[in-house]
C-alpha cells in the first residue's frame, strides 16, 4: 500500500486539504456550497468532490487525537458517511468545512470514550495482582519519543480544552475557525485557549518532575 507523508506547514491555514489564500478561501466556500447543494439533490459525485477536498485534513485532525492510522481512516469514513446522511439537516447558510470537522471531532471523542469505558470494565474484571505494573518495565514512558510524550500529556487535558488546543496550535485553525467548529463564541475560544495552554504546561511540568524523581525511586526500590 502506497504511503503518503504529509508535512504540516504554516501556510495550511484553511480547512481543506489544499492551501488556498484568503481570497481563494471565499471561492472555496462558494464552491463548497454549490457542491453541497448538488449533493442534497442526490448527486453523489458532488459529494465525492467534497470528500476529496477535505479527507486529508480530516484524517490529520483525527490523528492528532489518536495515533492509530487505521482507526483514523475508519473514523474519517464514518464522519463523511454521517455528513452525507445529515445533508438534509445541514443549514446551507453555514460553511461546510466547520460542520464537517465538528462531526469528525465528535465521532473521535465518542470512540475515545467507548475505548475508555471498555478499559474500565477490563480493569474491574481483573484481579488485584493483574493490575499492578510489571516491575521490569516500571515506566514505559521512558522509551517514548518526544511527540508521543506530548501526545500523552495532551490526553491529560480535559476534552473541551484539548479540542481547542489541537485545532489551534497543532492544526493551525484560526480562532474564528475553531469557534465555527466548536459552535462557541470567539471570546470563549480565546479563554479556553489560554486555559488549555496553561493546563498543558502544568501537565508537562508535572511529567518532567516525575521523570526527574524516578532515578531516586528506582534506587530506593532496589535497596529494599
Amino acid at each position, binding site marked *: 500500500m502506497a*504511503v503518503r507523508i504529509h508535512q504540516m506547514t504554516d501556510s495550511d491555514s484553511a480547512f481543506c486539504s489544499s492551501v488556498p489564500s484568503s481570497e481563494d478561501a471565499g471561492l472555496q466556500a462558494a464552491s463548497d456550497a454549490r457542491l453541497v447543494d448538488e449533493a442534497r439533490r442526490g448527486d453523489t459525485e458532488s459529494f465525492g468532490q467534497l*470528500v476529496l477536498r477535505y479527507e486529508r485534513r480530516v484524517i490529520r485532525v483525527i490523528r492528532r487525537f489518536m495515533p492509530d492510522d487505521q482507526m483514523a481512516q475508519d473514523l474519517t469514513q464514518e464522519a463523511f458517511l454521517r455528513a452525507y446522511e445529515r445533508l438534509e439537516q445541514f443549514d446551507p447558510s453555514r460553511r461546510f468545512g466547520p460542520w464537517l470537522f465538528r462531526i469528525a471531532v465528535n465521532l473521535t471523542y465518542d470512540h475515545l470514550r467507548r475505548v475508555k469505558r471498555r478499559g474500565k470494565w477490563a480493569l474491574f474484571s481483573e484481579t488485584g495482582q493483574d493490575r499492578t505494573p510489571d516491575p521490569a518495565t516500571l515506566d514505559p514512558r521512558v522509551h517514548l519519543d518526544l511527540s508521543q510524550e*506530548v501526545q500523552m500529556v495532551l490526553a491529560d487535558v480535559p476534552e473541551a480544552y484539548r479540542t481547542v488546543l489541537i485545532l489551534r496550535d497543532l492544526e493551525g485553525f484560526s480562532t474564528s475557525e475553531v469557534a465555527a467548529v466548536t459552535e462557541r463564541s470567539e471570546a470563549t475560544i480565546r479563554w479556553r485557549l489560554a486555559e488549555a495552554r496553561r493546563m498543558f504546561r502544568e501537565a508537562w511540568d508535572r511529567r518532567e518532575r516525575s521523570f526527574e524523581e524516578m532515578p531516586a525511586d528506582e534506587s530506593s526500590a532496589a535497596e529494599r
Partner: protein
Amino acid sequence: MNHLLRKGRCPVKCSDARHLIHLSVGDDNLPDEEQALGEHLHTCSDCRAYNAGMVDAMQLLHDLRNSTIVTSDRSVWRSVIGRIKDRRSFARTSRQPQREFHGGVVALCALSLVLAFVTIVQNLPVNDSPFASVPDGSMNVSAPTIPASRVQPQVVRGTFQLNPDGTYRLLFEPSANRNAVSSITPEAIPTGNDQVHF
C-alpha cells in the same frame, strides 16, 4: 481584560498578565493587550520567568505540529460510496415488508369506517312529515312547526271551495309549495281566485 486596558495606563496584575502570556505565546493577543503585557514583563521578573516557561511549552506543540504524519495514500471516497450504496439497498429491502403491513392496516381501517358509517345511517331517526300525502288540488291546513325566522313569504295560487259542512277547502295549483302553508284564519279567507299570502 479589555476593560482594564481601556481605563488607560492601569497597571496589569500578575494574574491578568499570566492570562495574557497564555495568549501571547500563540500570537492570540490583541495589540493593546500585547502592549500592556510588554510593559508588565518589563517590570516583573516572576512573570518573565513564567513567560519563558510558556514559550518552551509552546515550542513542544509547534514541533509536534510540524512533525510528519504518515497516512495512507488511498482515498476514503471509494469506501464511503460503497457504504452509502449498501445503506440505500438495505433501506429499500427493509421497507418492503412494511408496505404490505401498512396496506392491510389501511384496508382494515377503511372497512371499519364504512361499517361505522352504515350503522350510523341505519340508526338515524325517520323524520315523519306533518303533512300527509294529499291529492293535487287539496291539502290539510294544520300548521307545521316552522320557526318564524325561517318562514319565507310566498305567494301561492289556489281556489277556496266551500264544503257542505261549512269548512273551506283550499285548492292549490300543482306547483305550489305545500310545506310553506301555515294556518288559515277565517279573516284570511278570500273569495274566488284572489291571492293568499301566508
